[in-house]
């Protein structure tokens, strides 16, 4: 897929269209269009200091149709899913779920600046698809070798500690009905593509 280099001139309804796109890809009913820009979310957020945009700003950008900027923001990646904002939002916006949606869209369009978070998610998902279970040792090893080579010396005592306390599985667990799981996941992936 070719990603447009310049954003198209702001059509009147491009904001609505992007907002609808985000809502359509969110698990529950996002209620994103109900946001009243009160800022409660940003004020409740433990990660706000590390975010390019507070959740409130991000939602304003979505409404303005600033797709490219919204998908390049590090905000969704800094969201730790603590749900503080979600229980406080006066409008019941599914903020954390919208963050997941934006991560997925940024992944699709390869529009993220730091490849560490999507890289981690990819390896994780790959394992689950293969084994039906996550496998901490394989996950951590692959992820650290690719993204955090320099952290390895610090990690070694921890890994050894976990190992000697019987907390690391040397081999992945595999579920029995992996074929069935693959069938389910590939059908779901096809459905996701047609939307």
């Amino acid at each position, binding site marked *: 897929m070719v990603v447009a280099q310049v954003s198209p001139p702001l059509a009147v309804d491009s904001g609505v269209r992007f907002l609808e796109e985000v809502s359509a*890809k969110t*698990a*529950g009913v996002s209620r994103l269009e109900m946001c009243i820009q009160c800022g409660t979310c940003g004020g409740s957020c*433990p*990660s706000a200091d*590390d975010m390019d945009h507070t959740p409130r700003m991000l939602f304003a950008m979505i409404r303005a149709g600033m797709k490219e900027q919204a998908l390049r923001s590090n905000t*969704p*990646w*800094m969201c*730790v*899913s*603590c*749900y*503080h904002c*979600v*229980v406080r939002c006066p409008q019941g916006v599914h903020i954390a779920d919208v963050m*997941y949606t934006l*991560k*997925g869209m940024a*992944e699709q369009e390869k529009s993220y600046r730091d490849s*560490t*978070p*999507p890289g*981690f*998610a*990819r390896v*994780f*998902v790959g394992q*689950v698809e293969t084994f*039906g*279970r*996550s496998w*901490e040792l394989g996950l951590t090893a692959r*992820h650290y070798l690719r993204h*955090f080579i320099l*952290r390895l010396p*610090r990690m070694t*005592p*921890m890994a050894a*500690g*976990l190992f000697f*306390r*019987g*907390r*690391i*599985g040397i081999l992945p*667990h595999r*579920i029995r*009905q992996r074929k*069935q*799981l693959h*069938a*389910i*996941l*590939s*059908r*779901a*992936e096809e*459905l*996701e593509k047609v939307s």
Partner: protein
Amino acid sequence: MSRYLYYPGCSMDGSGRAYGESLIPVCEKLGLNLAEIDDWNCCGATEYVGVSLSPAYALIARNLAIAAKSKTDGEPLVAACSACYLNLAKADNYMKERPQLGERVNVALDAGGLHYDPGSVEIRHLLEVIMNDVGLDQVRANVVKPLAGLRVAPYLGCMLPRPDPDHRWKNHERPDDLDQLLAALGADVVDFPLKTECCGGHMTQIAPKVGLELIRRLVDEAEHHLADMMVTVCPMCQINIDAYQGEMNAEFHTKHKMPIVFFTQLMGVAFGLDPKKMGIGRELTDARPALKKIGKEAQPAADPVAPAHRPRPDKRALPMPRMESEATAAAETPAEVAR
């Protein structure tokens, strides 16, 4: 014995082994019969939903479909990992809330010969089952070795009390359920202000600076409240605070040694079960020295010293007059002087 279906989740026989080992015998004592559902798969943690929606929910729903099939008589499905619990509960709710998602998930499940009607399985977290179905009286009746003298900081983390799709919690920000349970075991319970703050979850993996800072806040605060240990309900919180404490100490040049154990481990100890069998000793920051305090003359509960908050560089704040002590503290951080 009341029967419950049980979804262990991947960490239960890996990094969260102490949780898995301790909760089974503790539940037996409490008359809860946990039947593990057959051939369950990983729930996708917080990773899968950030990649692709329908597969992420189909993955969770496979477990729900298996649970629905294994029900003999309306038993709830119990998870002990907060992230697993929330994933299961969210899938169940969102399949209802967005029928389109529900349909899609079922078309996908059909490829594997499965089906799930949202709402057909009741999803619960172990702590909530113990509080509401078993009750504190029953818990107290099982205590043979009260945890007197042990000062504990109850740490719930975020995903159990929030967003609470099934409305099971009276208070989402400062619930005291875990406090009550630990008090029923005879422990000296700290009123821990950060009890539902996030430990950062996967941040230690993807943005270590952010993750380690969140862990630092929690451990620091527990220490200021003179807690002997923190107590958790989630394997991910446990591994973050336990296993990454070393890296956190290296990052911030601190020397924290704050053990963190699962609430079921302490229940087991209080019920007179062998601590080793309860997985005590599997934690990287050893909890055993603190456990030796049990039954010893409790020190007069010293009130916590006022936490020494680090001066926070805030680029956006207006310049304000400062107290002298603040000014000296700030002068030590070059970032503050520069602003």
